[in-house]
């Protein structure tokens, strides 16, 4: 054998090996992504459900009271009152405090001090947090919806994508690229919070730099800068955990701040930067004019007062095509939403609006009669709807390879837009490039649509250590993007490809097994349909088919089968045994009705979200009655029966009757799934990832 032939053989062999690994890595990626997006979709479904409830419960019902109590903000509406509410002045910083002390106005030294402190895992005192947030809020209010920036000669602007609480990535970027300054402008493209455990630290640093260099640091809002999303994905929990006394205030102030974050940045009138993307309806002129702070929770809706509700209810239940026509303009986002997606108003605004509606009624009624049927909707509301939709599209959309624009069913909000839409929208606005984030990319960045759309993602190891690199963009006056990639965490750099894939894969499989476990009743039913003779065995083909039907994650089960099903006999699976072997722990509690447990596991995130919503004062605990109502709500949403006895039983078993209230964190902890296979090993690393993912 010649050495050339030998080399050829070895190269061929090795390339095959690497490809196999790549295939596994890609499967793993798909797992994480489907679970993540299914979670987002779930979130939106939950809110649609609340809307449904609001419409179908009679005024007297207690559930309705509960929901309207949750969603109507019992808030101070005037800015002066807000300022008084958030005043930090009464908060004393004790002698024992060892964290950083800040002085205002904010200076570069102040932010540096802050960063150093965070590097050393110190926590900023609530007084200073509120101070920074207060200053930030004041600044954001005077900023426009779209920041127009220009890159001067000799300068380069840096653009970062999602950070998701990964402080180490932000620090790595600053280390490699330098700190923000007037010579070094930055754009941060949203999703600063949730999932990672340093969301607040990231916000404080970004806000700090914003205060010091307001003309050179630009923040775009992301879909996670939304307090309802935060309830589910970890930011709310992080704040309440770190600030037990002042957490609620901080959260309320952040809610305000998020609503005031600008929506987009444009560089040299040529490059558009938004968090999610665009739709075929995107119109920057419209976006420039909206009152962005009114659209506080793009994921929630405001339920209108009685009279209007009658109208909507009537329309909805009639479902007649004619009226449906009028209320269905090219509806792309939150398409499952019955019409009204009103903004969240404060009391004062509500009164103003009603007065306006009353005034408008006549004239608009006249005008609209000609173009449509029956009772007209004041044009004001129609515009609000369009504005709201424009914003949701900016924050939630994803690109797709085919032409067209369709609702983003995977995420449940925004749309999927194609290369033709990119061309059209960029042309219309005389732009040449769209930079967005929102989707995790293995190499930290990715072009699509003929290099007219660029995705930039800055949270490395997003799904798991070794899952992906982060990246940021540097761009000079020529507006050509240059990329710098990195991966935080020393450990993962030392991993070989094999180890990194293995690690990530194990984590994904764990998450997947968890999903399988919580659906076991449904899985068994589905399997039994393929096993009419009750042999206890089904073919692998049927296994894959049944599993997909139940989980609906769109995963290639055939490919995953070897990692999920350990033993097969002649191509058949003993499904009962397989379910037992999923080896996820059961709680130690003795509860007679175990089906409630399964509902609990399956709807872990939903349950927690509902709990946190009910806990309007963010005290971390709810009353027994609220607890019972939560379960009732959940059972309506899922259309399953959860009896009062079962709930009382559950309540009793966790022994909270003593003081009549239940600590949410403790309750959720008790039911968090812990993979038995991790027993004996350090679980901190794994579970910290899983908690935020579920």
């Amino acid at each position, binding site marked *: 054998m010649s050495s050339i032939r030998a080399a*050829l*053989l*070895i*190269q061929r*062999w090795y390339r095959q090996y690497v490809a196999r690994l790549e295939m596994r890595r890609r499967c793993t990626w798909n797992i994480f992504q489907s679970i993540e997006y299914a979670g987002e979709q779930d979130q939106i479904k939950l809110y649609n459900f609340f809307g449904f409830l609001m419409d179908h419960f009679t005024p007297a019902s207690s559930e309705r009271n509960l929901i309207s109590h949750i969603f109507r903000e019992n808030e101070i509406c005037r800015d002066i009152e807000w300022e008084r509410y958030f005043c930090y002045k009464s908060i004393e910083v004790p002698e024992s405090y060892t964290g950083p002390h800040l002085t205002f106005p904010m200076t570069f030294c102040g932010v540096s001090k802050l960063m150093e402190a965070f590097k050393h895992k110190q926590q900023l005192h609530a007084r200073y947090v509120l101070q920074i947030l207060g200053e930030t809020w004041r600044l954001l209010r005077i900023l426009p919806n779209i920041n127009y920036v220009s890159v001067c000669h000799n300068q380069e602007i840096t653009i970062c994508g999602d950070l998701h609480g990964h402080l180490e990535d932000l620090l790595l970027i600053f280390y490699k690229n330098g700190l923000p300054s007037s010579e070094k402008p930055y754009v941060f493209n949203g999703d600063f919070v949730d999932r990672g455990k340093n969301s607040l630290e990231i916000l404080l640093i970004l806000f700090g730099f914003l205060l010091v260099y307001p003309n050179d640091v630009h923040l775009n809002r992301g879909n996670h800068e939304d307090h309802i999303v935060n309830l589910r994905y970890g930011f709310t929990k992080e704040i309440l955990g770190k600030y037990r006394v002042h957490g609620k205030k901080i959260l309320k102030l952040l809610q305000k701040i998020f609503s005031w974050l600008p929506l987009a940045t444009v560089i040299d009138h040529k490059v558009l930067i938004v968090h999610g993307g665009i739709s075929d309806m995107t119109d920057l002129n419209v976006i420039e004019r909206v009152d962005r702070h009114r659209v506080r929770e793009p994921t929630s809706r405001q339920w209108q007062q009685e009279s209007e509700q009658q109208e909507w209810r009537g329309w909805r239940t009639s479902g007649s095509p004619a009226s449906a026509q009028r209320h269905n303009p090219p509806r792309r986002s939150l398409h499952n939403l019955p019409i009204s997606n009103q903004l969240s108003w404060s009391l004062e605004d509500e009164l103003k609006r009603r007065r306006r509606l009353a005034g408008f009624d006549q004239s608009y009624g006249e005008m609209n009669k000609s173009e449509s049927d029956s009772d007209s909707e004041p044009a004001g509301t129609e515009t609000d709807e369009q504005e709201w939709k424009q914003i949701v599209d900016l924050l939630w959309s994803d690109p797709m*390879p085919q032409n067209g624009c369709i609702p983003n069913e995977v995420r449940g909000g925004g749309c999927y837009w194609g290369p033709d839409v990119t061309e059209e929208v960029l042309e219309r606005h005389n732009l040449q490039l769209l930079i967005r984030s929102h989707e995790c990319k293995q190499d930290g960045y990715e072009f699509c649509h003929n290099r007219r759309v660029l995705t930039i993602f800055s949270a490395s190891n997003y799904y798991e250590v070794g899952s992906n690199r982060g990246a940021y963009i540097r761009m000079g006056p020529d507006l050509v993007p240059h990329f710098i990639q990195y991966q935080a965490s020393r450990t993962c750099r030392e991993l070989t490809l094999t180890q990194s894939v293995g690690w990530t894969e194990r984590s994904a499989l764990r998450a997947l097994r968890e999903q399988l476990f919580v659906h076991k009743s449904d899985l068994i039913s589905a399997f039994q349909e393929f096993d009419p003779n009750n042999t*206890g*065995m089904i073919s692998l083909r049927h296994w894959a088919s049944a599993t997909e039907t139940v989980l609906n994650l769109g995963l290639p089960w055939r490919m995953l089968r070897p990692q999920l099903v350990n033993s097969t006999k002649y191509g058949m699976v003993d499904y009962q045994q397989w379910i037992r072997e999923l080896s996820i722990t059961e709680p130690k509690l003795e509860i007679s009705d175990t089906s409630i447990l399964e509902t609990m596991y399956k709807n872990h995130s939903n349950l927690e979200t509902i709990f946190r919503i009910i806990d309007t004062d963010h005290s971390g605990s709810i009353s027994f009655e609220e607890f019972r109502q939560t379960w009732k709500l959940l059972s309506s949403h899922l259309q399953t029966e959860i009896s009062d006895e079962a709930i009382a039983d559950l309540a009793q078993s966790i022994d909270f009757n003593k003081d009549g209230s239940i600590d949410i964190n403790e309750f959720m902890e008790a039911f968090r799934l812990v993979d038995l296979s991790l027993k004996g090993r350090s679980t901190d690393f794994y579970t910290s990832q899983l908690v935020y993912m579920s």
Partner: protein
Amino acid sequence: MMSQTDETPAVAKRRDNNMAESNNQSAETKLSDVHKRIKAAFETFDNAANNTVDVREIGTIIYSLGCFPSQADLHDFIAEVEEDHSGYIHLDRFLPAMTKVLLEHKFPPIPKDLLLQAFEVLDKDNKGYLEPEELTKYMTQEGEPFTQEEMEEMLTGLADHERNVIYYKDVINQLAIDPDM
């Protein structure tokens, strides 16, 4: 799950029938299985769920189906199935071409002993291992050369951590374990 001794004759018969069905390798079943495997692998890279994949992923897909094409083989295959240099490959063209490859065993695996022989040829001094420099020289200069990135990854992955040499006999055995097949 009942053990063999517990089964009634009726149940045993049913079980045997089930298994016989799945073992029945008629040509149709075999073909349909092959199609399923190809589609499953293809789907993994079909991000937009529209039955197309980026041409740069085709190599990975083919390898993952248990084939061992050379780079030249890959180029030829791609030339056949790519849609006019669009950068995309559609399942409609990939499926028949790949089915043929699988049924004809066109790019068979490399037998272990041949692989061992290949390493031994490169190990001129018969040391039983290769120095990183030796391997690098051959991999990056001969045959269908590796890129620098590929080379670095190979060294990190295959080299013994302490001695920093490649014990190729061990490596061949390790990497041969294929859980996917």
